[in-house]
């Protein structure tokens, strides 16, 4: 008998917060119906405090939402199996726009968007255009070129590294262009690359960086793997003249680091803002918002003191060429 009571009490403890949560959101939905406040939700497989990709995307959403008067909500640290169900619950809660920050969400977005024709989906790094899906596509090639050119100019050992999270189309493009650009500014460069197979396994990033340094004496690295990159930076921080190039936010502008020399900045906020305006105007869908150097969606971040004036001038000249499309044909 005692056990049954205990089981009942435990069940109550588990169920009550759930009920309270449902109640709270229920009332919210009815109040917003009268005066329409648009709502955007973001899902993320890494976390918004990863100091890299997730953080940048979250900040972009918050900044864009502030400009356009959207309410924001997010769920982070979810696994691939939960992408679709997480988006479904936001759609059910009456969110107007769902922001999926990466190519890896493509299939889940397509699946959910088909079932919720009234909800709009913005897919970062996507290549899908339907009635309610719009893609936001920062030019991965230009990002790769920008990072590669700086890495090629900065390296002293002629050996540079690249860490990928998953083998996504955009990651592959970044790697290919990173290599091409580094070779263009410094023909003697060799590029080492490795994939962590994860965006959250920080320890793996540490091991990859350590192995690249011990095998090939890599001294400049660039990563496309969120929290994994911060592990790599920890290793690089143990050396005096080994550096990392950040992305997609301007890392040196938000926190101090001896390792990061510069960032390739993607201004997702502007692009996401355009999507929000479309949602409000009812013209959402069937298009891709492109972002590159010429429309200001990509830019060069803050330089650290490790970058000499000479390198800086050469690099900025290279960036101008990338912008004009004359850097690599």
């Amino acid at each position, binding site marked *: 008998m005692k*056990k049954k009571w*205990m*089981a009942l009490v435990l069940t109550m403890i588990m169920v009550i917060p759930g009920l309270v949560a449902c109640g709270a959101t229920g009332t919210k939905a009815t109040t917003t119906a009268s005066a329409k406040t648009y709502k955007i939700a973001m899902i993320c497989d*890494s*976390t*918004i*405090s*990863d*100091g*890299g990709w*997730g*953080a*940048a995307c*979250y*900040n972009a959403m918050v900044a864009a939402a502030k400009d356009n008067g959207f309410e924001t909500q997010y769920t*982070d*640290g979810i696994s691939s199996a939960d992408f679709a169900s997480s988006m479904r619950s936001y759609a059910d809660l009456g969110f107007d726009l769902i922001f999926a920050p990466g190519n890896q969400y493509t299939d889940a977005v397509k699946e959910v968007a088909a079932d919720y024709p009234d909800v709009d989906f913005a897919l970062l790094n996507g290549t899908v255009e339907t009635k309610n899906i719009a893609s936001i596509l920062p030019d991965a090639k230009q990002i790769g070129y920008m990072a590669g050119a700086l890495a090629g100019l900065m390296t002293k050992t002629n050996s540079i*590294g690249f860490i*990928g999270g998953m*083998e996504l189309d955009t990651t592959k493009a970044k790697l290919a262009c990173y290599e091409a650009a580094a070779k263009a500014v410094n023909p003697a460069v060799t*590029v*080492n*690359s*490795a*994939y962590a*197979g*994860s*965006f*959250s*396994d*920080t*320890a*793996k990033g*540490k*091991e*990859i960086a*350590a*192995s*690249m340094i*011990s*095998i*090939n004496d890599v001294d400049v690295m660039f990563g496309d793997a969120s*929290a994994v990159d*911060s*592990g790599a930076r*920890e290793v690089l921080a143990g050396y005096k003249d080994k550096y990392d190039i950040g992305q997609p936010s301007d890392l040196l502008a*938000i*926190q101090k680091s001896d390792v990061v020399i510069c960032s390739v900045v993607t201004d997702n906020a502007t692009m996401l803002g355009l999507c929000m305006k479309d949602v409000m105007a009812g013209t959402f869908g069937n298009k891709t918002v492109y972002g590159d150097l010429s429309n200001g969606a990509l830019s060069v971040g803050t330089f650290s003191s490790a970058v000499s004036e000479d390198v800086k001038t050469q690099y900025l000249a290279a960036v101008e060429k990338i912008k004009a499309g004359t850097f690599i044909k």
Partner: protein
Amino acid sequence: MEAIMNVNFIQELLLSMVRMATPILIVALAELYSERAGMVNIGLDGMMAFGALAGFLTCYITNNPYLGILAGAICGILVNMVYAFCTITLGAEQIVYGMAINIFAPALASFIYKIYFGINSTLISNTLMSAVPIPFLSKIPVLGPVLFNHSPIVYLAYLLVPFTYVFFNKTKAGLNFKAVGEFPKAAESLGINVIRKKYLASIICGGLAGIGGAYLTTCYIGTYSDGVVSGRGFIALSAVIFGRWMPGGVLLAALLFGFTDALQLRMQVLNSGTPYQLLAMIPYLCTLFVLAFFGIKKAGPKANGRPFFKEER
């Protein structure tokens, strides 16, 4: 090819193996204690995640990684007590509660992190435990840096292996402990308090799993992010089966995982053209191969996974 033959390469490879094997070893030993008392605990990943957060927070607040490890152990025990109460006292299905821990604990960890740091997008890092080289021994070429230049937790993990062996095979307490996992009815009839032994096993399991998680955020990497455990708990779980429920076997299994993982990362760096998925499979292929080759001649504890009811016939 010449890069592979290099002494420096081998030393780095072995060093990386030891680093990567340590969290798996600690957590696999945690599971070993639990299973030896007849409890399959698949909630290792969850306890690690919670231990990782507790360790990180404590270390961040006090600047003392040792307190972080201690906090990790305590929190691991607390989380595992939920599992212990439900499976031992209430006799619930162990797999279900293990899974519940895996869902509940990481979510709680992430919740606490967000409450403490707010919605914050800068990466917070803390002090790492510094390595304590063992005098003289760490000067031995190749082997010295690989084995004797680590943080104390690493030494503790490896010392636990012979300790566990002696405990289970040479001491009365250890044999009693094993009896609980083999045939609890008989053990009870001989005056062993089965319930108390099972709770003891849960405390050891929770404590070690919490230390394994805290090791990640206080000795290995100085940051915490959700998903930092990355399935290491499940690898530890398989290391116990792979090591046939023996401490020596568990050590070998953990080292094999560490070695193959370190090797595959290096092979990726050496041959940038190879599809990485192929290389990332190596640790798992090795497991399959070894299991198929040696077979499972000796199964685990006989009463493993079964609830124990004192009055039941």
